[in-house]
């Protein structure tokens, strides 16, 4: 619509540029140059350099990654063996994380991407098991996985720093005490509000990890769709603000690692309402690479 309006405007003002560009390569190049200069000026420090920073740091330097290095003599261990070792190491790390969480009194979270489960734990006991409908991971995580630091990244448990959601943490309703029994009776007849809001929330953890939990169900109405859109935009602008902060401090912005899960609305609501401010989380990645 906007493009049509622009074309109409230029045509009516006899300023149609398309015929002008049609057979003029230099003009096309100048246009493209001025189009690309600002894009590159932004893309280089915000997109390209952070990626180079991570991929450079995670590139292999020496073959110390697989266990078994240093043993002498005989035939070489197979690729399958090395993969089994990686898988077991991940399992071991997850078991260590669960044992660590069992020492805490508070409600804790365990995300098991291998079995597609999210568990709410109290003292190590799973009190709610939620099935993950689908999940997506930041493409930077496999690059971290290439480093030997994967296990140190996963352990100790992740610590929650902040949380935002489309629903209130506690659905508190404020009521003023009635003056007498008549007023109390009138108040008692009031309807109990039924919560039927869509649930989407973001948990920001330490070690640069963000977990986004979305409900599987599509938005229940236009209002909820708008709310979700506003929630997403808020997240995008928050990231943009953080990028600006980094640029002001003359630092290359660090790429945030994220995991996005979709669970049922009831599960999402139960998880969000249950998790405490000082939440700790155990993460089990599906594979080490």
């Amino acid at each position, binding site marked *: 619509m906007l493009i049509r309006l622009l074309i109409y405007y230029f045509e009516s003002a006899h300023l149609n540029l398309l015929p002008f560009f049609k057979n003029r390569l230099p003009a096309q190049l*100048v246009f493209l140059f001025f189009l690309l200069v600002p894009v590159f000026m932004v893309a280089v420090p915000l997109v390209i350099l952070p990626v180079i920073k991570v991929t450079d740091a995670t590139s292999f330097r020496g073959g110390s990654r697989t266990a078994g290095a240093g043993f002498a003599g005989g035939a070489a261990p197979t690729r399958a063996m090395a993969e089994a070792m990686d898988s077991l190491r991940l399992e071991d790390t997850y078991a260590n994380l669960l044992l660590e969480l069992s020492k805490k009194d508070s409600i804790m979270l365990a995300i098991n991407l291998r079995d597609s489960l999210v568990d709410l734990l109290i003292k190590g006991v799973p009190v709610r098991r939620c099935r993950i409908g689908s999940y997506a991971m930041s493409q*930077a995580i496999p690059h971290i996985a290439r480093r030997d630091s994967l296990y140190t990244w996963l352990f100790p448990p992740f610590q929650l720093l902040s949380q935002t959601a489309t629903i209130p943490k506690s659905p508190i309703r404020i009521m003023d005490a009635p003056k007498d*029994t008549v007023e109390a009776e009138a108040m008692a007849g009031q309807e109990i509000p039924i919560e039927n809001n869509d649930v989407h929330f973001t948990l920001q953890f330490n070690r640069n990890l963000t977990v986004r939990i979305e409900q599987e169900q599509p938005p229940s109405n236009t209002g909820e769709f708008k709310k979700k859109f506003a929630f997403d935009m808020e997240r995008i602008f928050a990231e943009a603000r953080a*990028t600006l902060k980094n640029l002001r401090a003359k630092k290359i912005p660090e790429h945030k690692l994220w995991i996005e899960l979709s669970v049922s609305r009831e599960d999402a609501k139960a998880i969000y309402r*249950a998790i405490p401010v000082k939440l700790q989380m155990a993460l089990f990645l599906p594979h080490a690479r």
Partner: protein
Amino acid sequence: MKRSVRRDFRPQPKTEDKTQPRIEFDDFDPEKTEKKLGLALFFGLFFGLLAAFFVFLYAPNLRDLLFRLAPRENSVRVDSSADPKLYERELLALAKSVQAKQKRIDALIPKEPWLIIDTSGNQIFLMQDKTLLHKGVCSTGSYVLLRAGRNKQWIFRTPRGQFRVLNKMRRPVWYMPDWAFVEEGRPIPPRDSPLRYESGVLGEYGLALGQGYLIHGTLYKRFLGMPVTHGCVRLGDEDLEVVAKNMDTGSKVFIY
């Protein structure tokens, strides 16, 4: 069948190529061209800045896209000098260690009956080890903040975490706290007043969790499944009986 094509190699008269535009220098207007060039630069910059803004806004997504394109090391480096037998032994040791840890994790689940209370869905799950014995509905805290005057206020929510049944009562009597009178618009009687005691409202059984919180029955069965209580957990008669019969003093209750 092969079709023969005859080509005429004789010199042909020159014809006007209609695909190539004719440049007519009579039409050339330097002012107009300059204006259009200026506009081209302006729009180049305008759309460039617009694109740059979107690159800035969606930089995390673009970085992710770039990470996807970045070469990944998929190969597993295996030391050729490594002994597979020793490697296998290391694998077995690790597998045993994982199993031992898994046993320790499984041992955390109570063996005697235990209760899970879901305050967001207002449901209860009576468990034994990993088996579900009974599932039912309950009512938990309403999250009402009751304000009385300037300094007095109460919030009615069910506490979360791990609890134990401290006391199991038959036909419990309710000792009405101050908020019960405030909520009904009645004057608050002294602490030892007989007006504070009410029997027959908490059902057949009461399981005390500490700090005044109970799992008990209710007269308001139509509210079961809704968050309406002052922090206690209300159950229907049948659910209460199953819970009370399976749970004992010391049994674990997990509320989330």
